[in-house]
């Protein structure tokens, strides 16, 4: 009789959605999550664009869908061996199991903004990242956010499209996130002046352009095309940004009460180890390599190993969820011999 177990590495939204779908298709997913709770990055987020849906609600919906799945928290995959039809897996908590397919949904990690030394993250008092701001929106106290900010600057592409930061790729979601957060910020502090420093605005998805227009029209967010190159601090502890307004062709300087760095998405640091465990490849961008990038994004080059979500590249939430569903169906078809 066929083994019904399917190993899902990563309990973020991709892993959870895939597990929910696989349950419905009659399989027995086993989620292995290294953190102490499910939901991944989305669980730490406040609201999701473009509908401003509560991230917590989404995670709750997904959690409800996987009640019957086996979930191991604070657990990693220790080793994995290929069998004739499936994999034999040993987990870091001592559990060993056999599964007939593996879904890697290990996601991404946020670029460590301190690595961009010139922005002074961790050095100056009022420099935070997009994730910090989102947590603050969600109610977590953060004394770096001033009580009554006059000016706020968002710097796009921190750790994205930057060879020096080790990531030449566009993280694709940060432009939209910056605009979303700029609007949310304006909603809380209508008197604040919000400045977005961008290289290119990449607003490609449904309703994204509307957000841009709203930010300009209804919220008066200022957009400057130029990459901030250095940040200093004045006597009052405010951050001083230097950039070039490349459209006006002028050097510009801004004193801000808060600087928000839009950290980009990098492949998770343990992905390479996972890849070598199942003997699949890492792509030139550091993410996992799919069979192809058009029709078989969910499939690895190894039989029985599938991908979902940001482990193959930066993705938005709807893209990740859709991919997880597709992966579940791919696995179902593969195990039924329909692939």
């Amino acid at each position, binding site marked *: 009789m066929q083994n019904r177990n399917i190993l899902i590495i990563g309990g973020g939204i991709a892993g959870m959605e895939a597990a929910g779908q696989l349950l419905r298709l009659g399989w027995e997913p086993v989620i292995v999550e290294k953190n102490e709770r499910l939901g991944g990055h989305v669980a730490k987020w406040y609201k999701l664009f473009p509908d401003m849906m509560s991230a917590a609600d989404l995670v709750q919906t997904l959690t409800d869908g996987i009640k019957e799945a086996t979930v191991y928290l604070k657990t990693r995959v220790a080793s994995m061996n290929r069998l004739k039809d499936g994999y034999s897996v040993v987990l870091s908590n001592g559990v060993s199991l056999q599964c007939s397919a593996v879904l890697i949904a290990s996601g991404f990690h946020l670029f460590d903004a301190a690595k961009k030394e*010139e922005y002074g993250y961790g050095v100056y008092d009022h420099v935070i990242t997009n994730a910090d701001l989102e947590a603050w929106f969600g109610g977590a106290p953060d004394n770096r956010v001033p009580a009554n900010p006059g000016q706020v600057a968002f710097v796009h*592409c921190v750790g994205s*499209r*930057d*060879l*020096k*930061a080790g990531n030449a790729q566009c993280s694709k979601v940060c432009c939209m996130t910056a605009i979303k957060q700029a609007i949310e910020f304006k909603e809380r502090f209508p008197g604040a002046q919000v400045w977005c420093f961008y*290289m*290119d605005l990449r607003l490609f998805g449904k309703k994204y352009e509307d957000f841009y227009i709203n930010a300009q029209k209804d919220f008066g967010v200022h957009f400057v*095309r*130029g*990459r*901030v*190159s*250095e940040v200093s601090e004045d006597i009052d502890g405010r951050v001083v940004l*230097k*950039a*070039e*307004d*490349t459209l006006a*062709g002028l*050097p*510009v300087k801004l004193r801000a009460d808060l600087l928000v760095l839009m950290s980009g998405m990098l492949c998770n640091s343990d992905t390479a180890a996972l890849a070598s465990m199942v003997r699949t490849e890492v792509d030139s961008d550091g993410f996992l390599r799919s069979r192809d990038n058009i029709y078989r994004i969910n499939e690895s080059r190894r039989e029985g190993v599938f991908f979902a979500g940001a482990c193959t590249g930066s993705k938005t939430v709807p893209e990740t969820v859709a991919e997880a569903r597709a992966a579940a169906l791919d696995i179902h078809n593969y195990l039924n011999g329909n692939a």
Partner: protein
Amino acid sequence: MPDFGFSLSKSSSVSLDSLDLGLYGELERLEPGVKTCMACGSCSAACTASVWSGMSVRKLILNLQRGKDVEKMLGSCMLCGKCSMVCPRGINTRHLILSLCRIYKKQ
């Protein structure tokens, strides 16, 4: 020519059909990295000389690409290397400037 009360000045628009890219072409050969510039402006913002001069590597590259003169900007570079430190595309801007100075021919 009769006086019409106004005169026509030379058009300030650049004709992309008839650009003289001799200098830029030579620069591309010496420092191929120049091709990857995405005009983000990091170099100009970081430039030490920009405080007291109009120096901007971004403008320099764009002006060359549009066949314009860049002598004035080039003349204030101190080669401090900040621009090459911040360039997200890893362009060797110091070598770019040194190469340009070498091949520069005064009109």
